[in-house]
């Protein structure tokens, strides 16, 4: 189980996403997950080994490292990527549920079902409308929230996005204020800024997708309202036909009841 497995799961969601959603997924996998795995993990690989404090006091290094890095950048990014990817699973579950319903209809031999075989149902692409629209929009909203929360957590925990070269530590058992030196601070700063920049791009893509979905929704609603306004006769004819049918049904029912009782 690793990032590849997540890619397999989310790749399935790609089929039912909008174009902006597909771009977002590509950015996520290439510019965030891949960069994390092939580059960032190696930069932070030796972070505690090469974190050196100017003291021989045993334990001082451990305590100072823990004080300045309560949770490592690399782990925070991994958690951010997992949380940001998870809302897409809601969409995957909803699509799987719809497919399951269609397969059940097909097996029952429902005439409403327009598919020729089960393979067609499996390969079918669902349009983002109805309840799927709500699931998709909620997933984008949650993605935005998670991205924002993690970016704020980063900023709050590390006082900005810069990695200092030197940290002054006076936590017990360090005897006095001790100088501690971080390994590869510039490289870490570069990668931190890169990851933050790509996070921001992902936030913009999510906002754009949200606006696009909302615009599509309102456009569709106004089209429907416009169609109803321009074709009222069509609607009225349908209603009168339905009323006639209802009358016929109620008449036949009454006759049946009378016939039964007599």
């Amino acid at each position: 189980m690793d990032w590849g497995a997540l890619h397999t799961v989310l790749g399935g969601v790609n089929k039912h996403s909008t174009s902006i959603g597909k771009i977002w997924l590509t950015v996520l996998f290439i510019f965030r997950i891949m960069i994390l795995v092939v580059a960032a993990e190696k930069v932070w690989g030796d972070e505690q080994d090469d974190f050196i404090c100017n003291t021989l006091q045993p334990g001082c290094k451990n305590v100072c490292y823990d004080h300045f890095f309560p949770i490592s950048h690399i782990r925070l990014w991994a958690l951010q990527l997992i949380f940001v990817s998870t809302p897409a699973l809601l969409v995957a579950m909803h699509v799987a549920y719809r497919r399951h319903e269609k397969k059940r209809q097909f097996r029952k031999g429902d005439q409403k079902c327009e598919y020729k075989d089960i393979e067609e149902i499996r390969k079918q692409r669902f349009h983002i409308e109805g309840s799927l629209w709500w699931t998709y929009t909620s997933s984008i909203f949650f993605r935005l929230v998670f991205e924002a929360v993690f970016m704020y957590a980063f900023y709050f925990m590390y006082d900005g996005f810069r990695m200092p070269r030197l940290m002054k530590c006076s936590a017990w058992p360090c005897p006095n204020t001790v100088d501690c030196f971080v390994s590869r601070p510039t490289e870490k700063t570069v990668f931190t800024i890169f990851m933050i920049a790509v996070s921001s791009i992902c936030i913009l893509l999510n906002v754009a997708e949200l606006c696009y979905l909302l615009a599509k929704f309102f456009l569709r609603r106004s089209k429907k309202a416009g169609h109803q306004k321009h074709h009222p006769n069509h609607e009225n004819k349908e209603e009168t036909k339905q009323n006639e049918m209802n009358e016929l049904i109620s008449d036949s029912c009454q006759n049946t009841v009378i016939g039964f009782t007599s």
Partner: protein
Amino acid sequence: MSWGFLRHLLSGVNKYSTGIGRIWVAVLFVFRLLVYVVAAENIWKYEHDEFECNIQQPGCENVCFDHFFPVSHIRLWALQLIMVSTPSLLVVFHVAYRENREKRHNQKLYKSPGEIDGGLLCTYLISLILKTGFEIVFLVLFYKLYNGFKVPHLVKCDVRPCPNTVDCYISKPTEKMIFLYFLVATSCLCVVLNLGELSYLIFKYCIKCYLKKYIKKHQ
């Protein structure tokens, strides 16, 4: 043999699960297994090397580490993931047994071998109870072994050959604590999902039995 093997096995379970069961599998894969592999394993990777005692006495560090960490958090976490996933395989075996039986007798014995009814329902319920049981046992084990879910940054050790009480410092205690709390939270979520699924299945079965009796009565 790695976590991919377990994932492959559990993907088979997904086919015969209820909706809540599928959510449980998703939570297990994404929030527990994936977090374990990509984040947690690396935190505990060098825990012994980075465990430092304020003493030059050879052997003291080894003895103290062994005293405070009889089984490492990360190994206990891995065991928990394996034990919690395995009861689901009972369901897969039972479905395979049903399909085998149909093949042997060369006739349709069940409405659908994968449908959760009759004996398969019992197996499914047993697997849910076992899963919940294992989760609770491991949480209690974690709590008892490490006196809660906190990881202290300093432990005082006076086991031989350490000459006196010696200060020993644990590496990355805050990060370890954060991930332990994450483990507890996801375990509790899985327990809630299992109990929810158990109640749903029992409720569904009771309604079915009641309806059957009601129809028989009126026939």
